[in-house]
């Protein structure tokens, strides 16, 4: 008996979010697929890593909670980044247990993939041969990633069918808060200040942005948070134009810098 990341029989064609990704999986490609809202890294046609400006990177997740010290992370990047084995180095040097790295990395991978696979009209680009410096941790089949991304969209819509909480600045509602709020949602609610978006809150807490989306939709469903509406018309905006919120309305500069450094190091 072998454990597996996914055990459902494959149902090709049903859950294709990106035909290009599907084709790359079929040809067992290795490289980086850049889409509007994130990057998926493939090795032999499997997803080995994903990054998106909408969600904290694995370094933020590991260092914010204290699982890893910041200097420990940078030391690992310095020692093993060029060899593209940062993950393995973190475990072998005793900085982080193997199971903890797998849990954190898988969470970050599905999280970033959810944003990277968001609907977009911009063309995707694939660079063959590109590998991520984190190195192999626990590869996931493309089908599993696509299926999970669809399931997550449905989950969010079941909780609260208004996607604006995912990307717009949020404010607490004026009403008195007498509903009990679970501790994890409370920490999110405490950061809702009329300015921050879901991505900002995720960065601050060092939590997966998808988890924040789930909590925010629950808080919105409970009537505790609402989106800030953009300033009303009369500001020169053409009448009748509808603005769709962007997932990365305010890209995190530090993350983009880190992405650039990582790409340059390849």
């Amino acid at each position, binding site marked *: *008996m072998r454990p597996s990341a996914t055990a459902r029989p494959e149902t090709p064609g049903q859950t294709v979010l990106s035909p290009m990704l599907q084709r790359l999986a079929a040809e067992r490609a290795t490289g980086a697929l850049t889409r509007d809202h994130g990057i998926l890294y493939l090795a032999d046609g499997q997803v080995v890593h994903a990054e998106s400006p909408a969600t904290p990177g694995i370094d933020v997740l590991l260092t914010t*909670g204290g699982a890893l010290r910041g200097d420990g992370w940078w030391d690992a990047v310095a020692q093993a980044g060029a060899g593209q084995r940062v993950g393995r180095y973190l475990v072998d040097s005793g900085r982080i247990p193997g199971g903890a790295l797998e849990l954190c990395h898988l969470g970050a991978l599905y999280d970033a993939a959810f944003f990277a696979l968001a609907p977009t009209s911009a063309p995707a680009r694939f660079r063959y041969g590109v590998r991520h410096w984190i190195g192999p941790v626990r590869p996931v089949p493309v089908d599993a990633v696509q299926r999970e991304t669809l*399931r997550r969209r449905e989950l969010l819509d079941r909780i609260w069918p208004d996607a604006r909480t995912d990307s717009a600045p949020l404010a607490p509602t004026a009403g008195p808060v007498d509903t009990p709020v679970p501790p994890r949602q409370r920490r999110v609610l405490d950061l809702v200040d009329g300015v921050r978006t879901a991505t900002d809150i995720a960065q601050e807490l060092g939590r997966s942005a998808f988890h924040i989306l789930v909590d925010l939709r629950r808080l919105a469903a409970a009537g505790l948070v609402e989106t800030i509406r953009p300033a009303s018309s009369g500001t020169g905006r053409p009448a009748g134009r509808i603005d769709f919120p962007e997932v990365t309305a305010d890209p995190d500069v530090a993350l983009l810098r880190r992405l650039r450094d990582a790409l340059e190091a390849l």
Partner: protein
Amino acid sequence: MPGIDECLLDVMRLPGARGAAVVDWTSGLALGTIGESPNGDHEATAAETAEVARMAAEQPVFAQDRGPHDPAAPPVPAVEDVIVTTALGYHILRFVETAFDSSVFLHLWLDRSEGNLALSRIKLGEIAERLVLA
């Protein structure tokens, strides 16, 4: 390197173990699975058990018995595990405490006639600790 797969293999060595999974209870994602699942679909099972784990973790009545906890650290559920007994089986959901922010639990499905609930509960707790402490 002890990881998710090694941990699941350990779980399956428990007498009466029919299936197990590592699940994220916020998203309902199965991070790893092994053996059978009650409805033949590990992913659907994970989404369903995640909902049970979340309800237990978030109920104020269970959150009261929290032990000493660093307020700056990510919140950890006060609940250690959830046990559901059915006519033919036992289900144990064991929360995994990590040093980074997560919402992970181990789900073990045991055959009721072959499984030992008390022993399995203790062993599952040990395995959950080993998963994140090398």
